[in-house]
């Protein structure tokens, strides 16, 4: 049971799915932007907007580098992002079980 309210940043549908996808990876694992986009079926613009919001909140870390001459963007869930996600899931479950 949790006494916390919903996390307004994570609760938005695309951001929730981004967090859920990254949370399913081992801690510290990075996921390529293109792969994440493909998993979620989102557009470049939509993804960039929501990743920026999550990064601003400190929930994800974005790493940019080059593989050869090709730019690569990878993201991972930070420790505070993982905790926020877990708190939000606990809140949702609590709400469904009648606690809300």
């Amino acid at each position: 049971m949790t006494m916390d309210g919903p996390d307004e940043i994570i609760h938005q549908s695309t951001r929730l799915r981004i967090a859920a996808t990254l949370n399913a990876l081992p801690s510290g694992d990075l996921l390529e932007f293109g792969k994440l986009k493909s998993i979620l079926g989102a557009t470049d613009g939509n993804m960039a907007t929501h990743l920026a919001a999550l990064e601003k909140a400190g929930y994800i870390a974005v790493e940019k580098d080059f593989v050869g001459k090709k730019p690569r963007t990878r993201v991972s869930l930070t420790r505070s992002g993982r905790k926020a996600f877990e708190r939000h899931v606990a809140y949702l479950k609590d709400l469904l079980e009648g606690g809300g």
Partner: protein
Amino acid sequence: MNVTREEAAKALDDIGKASDRVIQLKGYHHGAPYFIIWGLVWLFANCGTYFMPENEKYFWPVGIGIGFVASLIAGALQSRKWPKGATASAAERRFGSRMGMTAGVVMAFIVAIVFIARPESGREVNAMISIVFPFLYMAGGVWAGWRLFAIGFVTAAAIIGGYVWIPEHFELWMGLFGGGSLIAGGIWLRTA
């Protein structure tokens, strides 16, 4: 901010689907090298047997030996990717040991089937052993994802088709299409 029970249920459903998709992709990526390795073993052993039948008895033991060593190396390389002490690492180790035990059960099943059915020709032995694996992939694919099922289906069709229609070139067929379908399947899984 207010969240209704319906919104909460939908959000949890979305979370479940996203997690399932990641687990499926991880399974594909973990399985891919083994498909490529054993596809190469099939290619090597079957084509070797076809083109140099006088050395038939050497190709499969050598191929299987190389396949096991390569699989062990692939497994070790994959386990290094997990950070030590992470929860997923423990789960991964359990997964690895269960995969090993499952492989042992499958090998025992094959030995039992060959012992009971007593195939008479090399072609029958080859087909009987080889056909077990694609059906396992199909059964696994029912649970793990349609790509695995598709690889099993194509490989099984290749084995049965070759056995029935081109018995005189069966090893060559098995090497090129059986092994080739596993290699192509492994590459396909990597791109998922």
